[in-house]
């Protein structure tokens, strides 16, 4: 099936078998490999993308479900060379380790701060609940997000 997907504000014409997941289409057809496939069963969160601002598991989403929606992946966060506030904070706080979960962490954090600019520690942890991390123990990410939330909106 052929359709047009809007990813990171760009239109992509894609063609794939009906059973193909959004994750596979983004990675293989469109070529954005920031989305990862950690378990392909909606359990680990590596495949998280934002669909109309909501975090979803792209491995479990048929690609045609993304029609007429806005998909955001990690590649859409930075503005050319300028990292987003969250990305900056992740770097400053040395939050990522192997980096495999980092795209998903950034996206769920962005979704959180966009709807709740001053979350509590508990709210941050709940928002991260669908993203597994084996390296960091989560706390460095929570600190980085808390710090990004405290900073004033950048110009």
């Amino acid at each position, binding site marked *: 099936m052929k359709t047009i997907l809007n990813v990171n504000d760009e239109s992509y014409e894609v063609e794939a078998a*009906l*059973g193909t997941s959004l994750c596979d289409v983004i990675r293989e057809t469109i070529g954005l490999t920031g989305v990862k496939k950690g378990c*392909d*069963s909606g359990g680990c969160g590596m495949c998280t993308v934002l669909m109309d601002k909501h975090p979803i598991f792209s*491995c479990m989403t048929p690609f045609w479900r993304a029609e007429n929606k806005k998909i955001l992946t990690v590649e859409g966060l930075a503005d050319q060379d300028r990292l987003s506030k969250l990305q900056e904070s992740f770097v400053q706080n040395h939050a990522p380790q192997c980096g495999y979960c980092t795209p998903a962490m950034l996206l769920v954090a962005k979704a959180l701060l966009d709807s709740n600019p001053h979350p509590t520690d508990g709210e941050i942890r709940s928002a991260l609940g*669908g993203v597994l991390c084996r390296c960091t123990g989560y706390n460095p990410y929570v600190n980085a997000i808390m710090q990004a939330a405290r900073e004033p909106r950048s110009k």
Partner: protein
Amino acid sequence: MVRYNPTVLERPSSINEAAQLLKKWGSKARIVAGNTTIYELANQGGLDDVDTVIDLSKLNLNYITRYDGSLHIGAMTRFVELASSNLTGNDSYFAAKEAAMKLTPPQIRNMATIGGSACSGIPFYDMPVTLLAIDAEFHATSSDEGERTIKAEDFFIDYFVTTLRAEELLTEIVCPNKERSSSSFVKLGRTTIDFALVNAAVNITLEPKRNRMSEVRIALGAVAATPIRAKSAEDFLIGQEPSRENIIKAASLGLDFEPSPSLHASSKYKKRVIPILVRDALFAAVNRVLRT
């Protein structure tokens, strides 16, 4: 094992059209609502001979409205919409919102639908037990038989089995609003993000003129092949005051059966913790009613 590889995508734009498609394709078709439970099934090889996928997203079944003294939830409403709806503790069906808010992880909350959860027939899911407690009615339609309404106690038949026939489509779930009534939902998991080892939902209604319980519905999930009601506990509370002693007594009565064990919780453990959950759910529901 070959993963499922459908070749036809149907995207009906009306309920009639959807019903006709269901009749046409029968078991060679599968409905896609949130695609969450379905995906698990596909991974296990359960959909290998499914050729046609029926996408319901164009049916405008994503709504939450109140009229006729009831809450009407479209079958395609996602948990996130229910979780952020304007239901309050004053509403007798508040537990639906509470269950939606407690559904984890967030990504699934943003994808899964109320209808899909109800139709899954999976006893440890959160929506079925909640809908049973809040006396929900399920509205279904098929092209041959037209519309029918099914009460919650008749809806869940067995593991993976609801009363819906292969050609029937669930369109709406209706939850009645009762005066001086509220509800709550609680669950116990292994970790914070988890399916329920045991879950419970209760709906308490007080008499109009005095603080005695006129209707009590206590539903338990993850303890049998379907969500079930704790009849003994319910019967004990009818006509009683919603006092702490009565609640604790009732909670301990919620055990007139052997809960079925699961991979991660024995029957014995479930028996031990069911009274705790029922007690907590009763306290929450009662407090909500008394606050209004």
